Every structure is written in structure tokens, then in C-alpha cells.
């Protein structure tokens, strides 16, 4: 049992670090993060950085080389992630394309389509979004209603998608639709990719509880898609969707924001009842609980990395990360604001600069517990796929989709 790299891992780590050092500034402390002046500026900077990665062979490391990837092993991706986290580099915008749309295209698109789209995706030239969820199909994502009708070689799409991150700046999207409403829920779905500039698409931002807008509603009115842009067979859309949902679960990891260290430091500098908060027994017990959670996640990750390092598939422990970290974040945010007493209610821009992380996390953590699989869905996944317990009894099994009650009544 040790924390050391193998020889190959060490040499890869060195190669990655050296390249990064020549091409990006090191972060000066844990709070020195890249932040763009605006979404537009951010997008520009990300594209420039991604192009640099692509030219030097560091883009989409898990992809095959022919599409602009590096054909890296999973452990190399982990090492790259560890090394790049030491540097102040642009990020965001590209994950959905490279993490979810890319693998689907690789599996289901024609050779010509792959050549046209994948390198552009890897280079960051084109941005992709994922059009899955609908107002009446959230956790029950197979319950989508957006209609697709084939006439000749062309499909006509009508309906509405929701929670689509980045739809407003995306060039392309992957889309799942219902082509046969009389078939049972999981049958009758058909999957496409489409140009987001197609006539009939309207993108409306959704205002979040924080006031910001990171995702959108997307309306489809008689949008045309050529049949050549269908991915998988007609009626096989659920099977195709699962490819990306599996990738989504792997992609959503640790919740960013204040963790044990921040809460610990706050308690060591903040007064509570006339002495330092850290001297308070209740505070110490609470901090210990978070430390154990943080440490448990950290070493679970190390166990995963060890499995990858041996060329094995990581165990089920990876499924606990988001559930634990998002809940911990929400509790730590509440605790941090509580320690500031009445002033804790001040919004982040009014709060003391080094303490505003708690106010940010107050909103963000509530969203994290839902995004990429709610706590409840993740617990279903753990109990069904890890522990082997049966599925909940379904009221919609085998019933034609158009006879299933759905949405808000």
C-alpha cells in the first residue's frame, strides 16, 4: 500500500507537468482560479486554450487519435487532471460535447460525420449541448414528449426541452425525441444530432434561484432534421441515450466550493460566545464529521485510481461522490453563514471577500443535489446497480406511452 506512481505513470506525469509549465501560469494558492470577465470572453479564452491543447496532442485525451484525441489510458487522464489542477487555465463550455456528445457520435455516426464533427469538437471550434430533459421528464427522462415525424428523408421536430446547459452558445446538439407515442415508454424514442442554428429553434434562458442563468428552455417548432443525422435505429433512442447518461454519471464528481479546510479556518478565526468558535465542542464535533466525509471521499478516489492503475474498472465507490459532497457543501454553507451570525444573510457581493464562498454555495449546493441525477435517483442507482435490489414497481410498464399520465396535475 503506497501512494507512488509506477515508472510509466511518473514519466507521464512529468511530461504533462512540463508541457503545462511551458504553456500556462501556475496557480498562486487555492483561491487563484481562472475567471472570465463575461461568458463571451470566457468562451473566447476557452477556445484559444483548447486549440493549444489540440495542437500539442493534449485535447480529449480519452478519444482515439484519428479524431484528435490521445488514446490515453484512464489513469493517464487522472494524472493529467491532477497536474492541470495546479495551473490557472480556462475551463468549462466544452465538457458536454467532449464528454457526452462525442462518445455517442463515435458509436453511432457515419465515418464521414465523425470526420466532419469530432476533430472540430476536440479542438473546441464547435460547442455542443445535450437536449434530453423536458418539463414532464426530469428524473424519469424516458418520459419525453418532443415529437419527431418522418416524411420522405426529413424529420420534423415539435416540442420543448429544458435544463439545457449552454444551448444559447452551442453550435450543435444531441436530441432525443418520441417518434412513436403508441409504443411503451422506453420504445418509440429516436435520437438525432442537429444544427442549433436550424430555423424553428428558440432558446430562452432560465433564471435560477441565484439570479444567474446557466441553462435554458429550448423550443422546437417544425424544426427539420435530415434522416442522415439520426443516431441509432428508429425506436432505439433510449439505448443511445444510455450511452450518454452513463458518461454523465462519471462526469459529475466532487462538488466545488467551501469544504472542511475553509470551515476549519473560519472556525479558527471567528468568535462565538466570546471565544474562538474552534474552542466550542459542538463546532469541533461538526467539523470532525465533515473531515471524515471529505477524507472518505478522497481515499475512495485513491482506491478508484488504484483500480485504474492496475487496469481494472473502478468499484461502485465512485457512485457515492456527488451524494456526499453536495450534501456536505449545503451543510457547510449553512454553517459558515451561521458563524457570521445575522451578517451571514448578506449577499456574496456584500459579504467580507474571503467569506463570500458560503453565500455562493448556499445557492449552488441546492442545485448540485439535483443536477446530473438527484440524490434520490443516485440512491436508486446504488441500491439497484450496486446492491442488486429490485426496481421500484412501475405503474407505466408495458402501457402505450400516450396512455401514461405525466407532468404536474
Amino acid at each position: 500500500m503506497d501512494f507512488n506512481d509506477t515508472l510509466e505513470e511518473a514519466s507521464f506525469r512529468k511530461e504533462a507537468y512540463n508541457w503545462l509549465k511551458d504553456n500556462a501560469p501556475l496557480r498562486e494558492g487555492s483561491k487563484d482560479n481562472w475567471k472570465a470577465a463575461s461568458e463571451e470572453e470566457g468562451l473566447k479564452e476557452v477556445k484559444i486554450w483548447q486549440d493549444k491543447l489540440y495542437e500539442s496532442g493534449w485535447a480529449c485525451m480519452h478519444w482515439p487519435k484519428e479524431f484528435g484525441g490521445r488514446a490515453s489510458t484512464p489513469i493517464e487522464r487522472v494524472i493529467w487532471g491532477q497536474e492541470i489542477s495546479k495551473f490557472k487555465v480556462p475551463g468549462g463550455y466544452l465538457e458536454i460535447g467532449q464528454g457526452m456528445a462525442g462518445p455517442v457520435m463515435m458509436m453511432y455516426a457515419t465515418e464521414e460525420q465523425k470526420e466532419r464533427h469530432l476533430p472540430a469538437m476536440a479542438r473546441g471550434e464547435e460547442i455542443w449541448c445535450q437536449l434530453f430533459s423536458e418539463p414532464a421528464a426530469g428524473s424519469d427522462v424516458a418520459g419525453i414528449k418532443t415529437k419527431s415525424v418522418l416524411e420522405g428523408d426529413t424529420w420534423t421536430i415539435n416540442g420543448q426541452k429544458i435544463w439545457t446547459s449552454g444551448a444559447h452558445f452551442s453550435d450543435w446538439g444531441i436530441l432525443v425525441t418520441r417518434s412513436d407515442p403508441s409504443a411503451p415508454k422506453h420504445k418509440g424514442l429516436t435520437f438525432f444530432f442537429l444544427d442549433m442554428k436550424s430555423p424553428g429553434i428558440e432558446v430562452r434562458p432560465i433564471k435560477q434561484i441565484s439570479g444567474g442563468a446557466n441553462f435554458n428552455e429550448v423550443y422546437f417548432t417544425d424544426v427539420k432534421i435530415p434522416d442522415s443525422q439520426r443516431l441509432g435505429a428508429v425506436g432505439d433512442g433510449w439505448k443511445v441515450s444510455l450511452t450518454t447518461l452513463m458518461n454523465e454519471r462519471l462526469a459529475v464528481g466532487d462538488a466545488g466550493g467551501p469544504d472542511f479546510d475553509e470551515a476549519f479556518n473560519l472556525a479558527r478565526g471567528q468568535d462565538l460566545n466570546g471565544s474562538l468558535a474552534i474552542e466550542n465542542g459542538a463546532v469541533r464535533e461538526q467539523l470532525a464529521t465533515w473531515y471524515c466525509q471529505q477524507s472518505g471521499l478522497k481515499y475512495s478516489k485513491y482506491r478508484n485510481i488504484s483500480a485504474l492503475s492496475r487496469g481494472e474498472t473502478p468499484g461502485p465507490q465512485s457512485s457515492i461522490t456527488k451524494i456526499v459532497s453536495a450534501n456536505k457543501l449545503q451543510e457547510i454553507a449553512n454553517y459558515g453563514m451561521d458563524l457570521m451570525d445575522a451578517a451571514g444573510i448578506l449577499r456574496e457581493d456584500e459579504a467580507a471577500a474571503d467569506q463570500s464562498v458560503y453565500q455562493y454555495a448556499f445557492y449552488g449546493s441546492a442545485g448540485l443535489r439535483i443536477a446530473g441525477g438527484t440524490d434520490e435517483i443516485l440512491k436508486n442507482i446504488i441500491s439497484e446497480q450496486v446492491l442488486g435490489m429490485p426496481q421500484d414497481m412501475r405503474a407505466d410498464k408495458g402501457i402505450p406511452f400516450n396512455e401514461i399520465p405525466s407532468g404536474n396535475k
Partner: protein
Amino acid sequence: MNFEFSADQMQLKDIARKFLEKEDAVKRARTVLEGEASYDEDLWKLIIEMGFTATAIPEEYDGLGLGYLELCVIAEELGRSIAPTPFSSSVYLATEFILKLGSDELKQKYLPKLASGSMIGTFAHTEGNTAPTQNNITCEVKDGVLNGRKIVVTDGDIADFAIVSAKEGSNIGLYLLDLKSEGVEIKPQITLDPSRSHAALSFTNAKFQSIGSASDGWENLQYILNRAAVLFAFEQLGGAEASMNMAKDYAMGRFAFGRSIASFQAIKHKLADMFVAVELARSNCYYGAWALSTDAPELATAAATARVSASQAFHECSKENIQTHGGMGFTWEFDCHLYYKRCRQLAANIGSQSIWKNKLISSLEKANQL
């Protein structure tokens, strides 16, 4: 990165599990709990034959000279099977005190016997209804003898000797006392988990041998408790996982409202919560195992983390296992209560959750001093 037990260690774990299953250690725990015996002597002998008591003792003292990672995997299986033997007292505590702090003479005299199991040792620390501190211990060494009383000493009625904490001047020292010698009175005490025996030990002008010097006795004691905490945590981890699996198996086979109760989300989410607790505890235990086996400077932090995390996991799993069983879980007939009781015993043995949580934060404060 190789943060995993080796193939050999995993094989040893598998051997230990199969052995304890074959010997039906859980059923033996019930027999001890219901009967007059303080422990299962037959199982103890078999455990000794397997070499488990000699695992981490160096070869020069007739041990196997394996490491602590090997001892950790054995501890997990003993916890999983709630084996009713004095293993934790004798191996995680008494052996460690002598191995790490004892003089050469003490090591020569005791370690071979601890390895061969011909002697059982334990640790006597608690005196009253509150955790022992440097200021509240009243057992005292003066003029070459020890006086005072210790309570809830696990295996106190069957041990041949005990390591006893006592004040000497303004220090707290550690002393080895032969429990068969004059001036020692042993009174068995009944606890919530009768599958492990406990006793009160009274000392009247009892003779002793010193373990290390009293001037750093308290620090030495914390060091041994940290080492033992990792091993206790592995027992707790094994017990937690066993409880979780018991709950799952019962739910899968129990039908109500026309369906398996394992298909209800209320039950599934309960099991998912148990799984989360067990996984966090397992990863923290591995970190503790690494720190224990390498004697890392992080041992205090890692041990407290493992201990708190595993105590929490066993608590969660053993109580929710009863809940998942419904009324049957509350019966004497089902095994749920054996784990619920052992959970309490292990949680109490070397200090409560509050104590270890406080130790954890203290060790982090120490590591983060500016």
C-alpha cells in the same frame, strides 16, 4: 498509486473469512451471550492455531513477522463474524503496549506467549462514568505498589495480565500487572454485550512492572490508542458491512403489499445510506491502515478519522438493520441484536465518538499550526 491491499493480503482476508464462517463464529457469539462462559475457548484456540495472534509480532519473539496490513484484514473478518474471543484486548492493545513501549526483558518474556496465545493480556483505563483524562485518573503508583480500581475492563476476568494507567507524581504512567498476583481482586461486570466479558479490577498494594517512563506515559498511551483505533475501526467496518448485507438479504426475501420490500424506495434508500457510510468508513480505514503500517506522522489524524467513520457506519448499519427487519429484528431469535450489541461494545471500548472527534480536530490543529 497502489492504495489497496495486495493479492496476498486479500487472500489472507479470504482465508480468515472462510475459517470464521466454517467455525460459525456468529453462532458462537450467541452461545457465549446466552451462556456462562466468558469467551469461546475453543474458537480462541483455533484462532491461535491459524496464527492470527502472532500476525504482527516480529519473528525474534516467535511471531509471524507479517505486518499491520495483514492484521487489519483479519480484524475486519473478526468484526464481520463478531467472534467472541479476547483478540482485540490481547492483540490490538496488550501486545502493542509491550511491543512498542516495553523493555527488551518484557518483550522477551511476554511477546512469545502473546504470539502463541498461552497468555491473554488486556488494558485497564476507565475508572468512572466519564472518559479518563490526565487529571481524573485516581489509580496511583507510590512506593513501588499500585492502588486503585478500574472498571469495564474488557476480558478483565480472563486475562493473565493488564496494562494499567495510573498516576505517578504529576504524571500518568503505564504499568503491567499480573492479574493472578496478590493484591488484585477481579469482579466480573455484566454489560449490554455479554458476548464479550468485562470486569472491575481492584488493586491493593499490587506489584507491577513499568511500561516506558511515566514522564511521557500519557503521550505513549495516546500513541498506542491511535494504533489500536485503526484495528478497532476495521472490526467495526466488518460489523457494519455484515449488518448492511443482513438487512439487504432480509429485505429481498420479505414480501409485503404483494411485492418484495426491497423494491420500496424507503428501504432501498435506507440501504443506500448504509452503503455510503460503509464506503466512507472503508476508505478511511484504508488510510488508517496505511498510517499504521508505515508509522506515518499522520497516524493520529488517520486513526481518529478511521475510528469516527467506522463507529458511525456500524451504528448506522446495526440500528437500521433492526429497522429493516421490522418486528423480527427486535426478537432474541434473529441475529440483528448481536451486531447492535457488539456495535455498542466496540464504540465504547477505547473511547467514545465525542472523544475521538475531539482528538481528530486537535490533531488537525496541531498539524496546521502557523
